[in-house]
């Protein structure tokens, strides 16, 4: 292990860390926003839409993320219409392709968690809200959703770590994330351990930090239970 080499290239790893953090947090945000309606239509058995959402989450959870990523990055570029469309500036960039892939995939997993949490909210909350004269929409927005999201925190913390683990696949489509930085270091200096072990250590550090953050969040938001 050549520690000086790692130190000399700290900027490379800093860039990788930055890319990983942006990639993970943005895909969690987009995935989470997409997951709420997906979970709603499933939990409340909305005709047609509920079945479609179920199919969406089954297909995305039943196939490897790597294949989904390859289809978005390599597959779509095959079509002339895609290359001439207004989406091309986005679909041309590996970073945005990774972001799209992780968001769509993450939404499928998060929707499962939210669906379970929505169904887990007791009937009494609905009845109490209705008795106060709230409309369905008001009751859902102000009572049911906040409770369901709070109840999702323990399962969602696993999902966040899962998205972080999945984000390393971005390096397979040339994004310089943490692993991408490690691979670049190894490739440039013909070394093996330095890049991978630094990447492993950085990922460990992020997971450790996330666990602490989620423990604090659970303590703060689940005290009412």
């Amino acid at each position, binding site marked *: 292990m050549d520690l000086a080499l790692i130190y000399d290239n700290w900027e490379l790893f800093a860039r990788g860390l930055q890319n990983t953090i942006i990639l993970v947090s943005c895909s969690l945000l987009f995935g989470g926003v997409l997951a709420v309606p997906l979970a709603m239509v499933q939990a409340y058995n909305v005709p047609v839409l509920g079945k479609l959402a179920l199919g969406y989450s089954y297909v995305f959870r039943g196939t490897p993320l790597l294949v989904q990523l390859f289809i978005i990055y390599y597959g779509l570029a*095959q079509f002339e219409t895609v290359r001439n469309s207004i989406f091309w500036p986005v679909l041309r960039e590996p970073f945005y392709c990774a972001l799209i892939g992780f968001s769509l995939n993450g939404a499928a997993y998060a929707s499962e968690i939210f669906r379970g949490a929505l169904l887990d909210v007791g009937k009494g909350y609905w009845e109490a809200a209705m008795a106060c004269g709230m409309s369905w929409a008001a009751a859902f927005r102000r009572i049911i959703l906040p409770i369901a999201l709070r109840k999702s925190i323990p399962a969602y913390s696993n999902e966040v770590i899962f998205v972080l683990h999945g984000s390393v696949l971005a390096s397979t489509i040339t994004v310089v994330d943490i692993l991408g930085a490690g691979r670049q270091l190894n490739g440039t200096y013909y070394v*093996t351990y330095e890049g*991978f072990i630094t990447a492993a250590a950085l990922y460990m550090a992020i997971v450790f930090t996330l666990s602490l953050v989620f423990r604090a969040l659970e303590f703060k938001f689940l005290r009412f239970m």
Partner: protein
Amino acid sequence: MDQLIEFGPMVLGGLKVTILLALTSLFIATCFGLAGAALKLSRSRVLRMVGSAYTTLVRGIPDLVLMLLIFFGGQILINDLGKLTGLWRYVEIDPFTAGMFTLGFIFGAYMTETFRGAFLAIPAGQIEAAQSIGMSPRTYLVRIVWPQIVPRALPTFTNNWLVLLKTTALVSIIGLHDIVYNAYQAGRTTQEPFIFLMVSFFIYLVLTLISDFFLRKLGRVYALK
């Protein structure tokens, strides 16, 4: 369409590698999982710490990072050890072995939690009762504990299998000719990556559907009465 007929069998050929890899690594993961659970449930503090270190490490480091580290780093490590001790000459780890052991190692950690959880769900009174009528640890493990671990561990075990099946796609990155690798190569040769990646996408979906079907049957056979 002609190209699909010409290169389709090549993609399907990868199916054999994928399934063989998934089954062998499932076997290794089960062994690692049982060993890991034994470590984490052990009376010795040192052994418990070894078990915790194992699961923490796997939870902290993304699968692909571990796989690259074992495939590239493990090879050098083994050869350095061989040179140092003079016990063996140059050894080459093929991607199948590296992939199999990495997947086994990673999913062994998840299996550890599966088996540990199943064991902890058995009421302590049962083991005390077994001891009080004079059963040896070996006897009560075989007659009392094991028959109850199987149905309790099965739901998580099957979930681990589904995740493992999809994670095998990562071996395409270390050059093993599995479904994804072959689909990617066929796509490059024919300039039609979308079609071939979609083929691999549906193969995984079918594999998930078949697994789901059989595992549900198995779950009914082993359901706790």
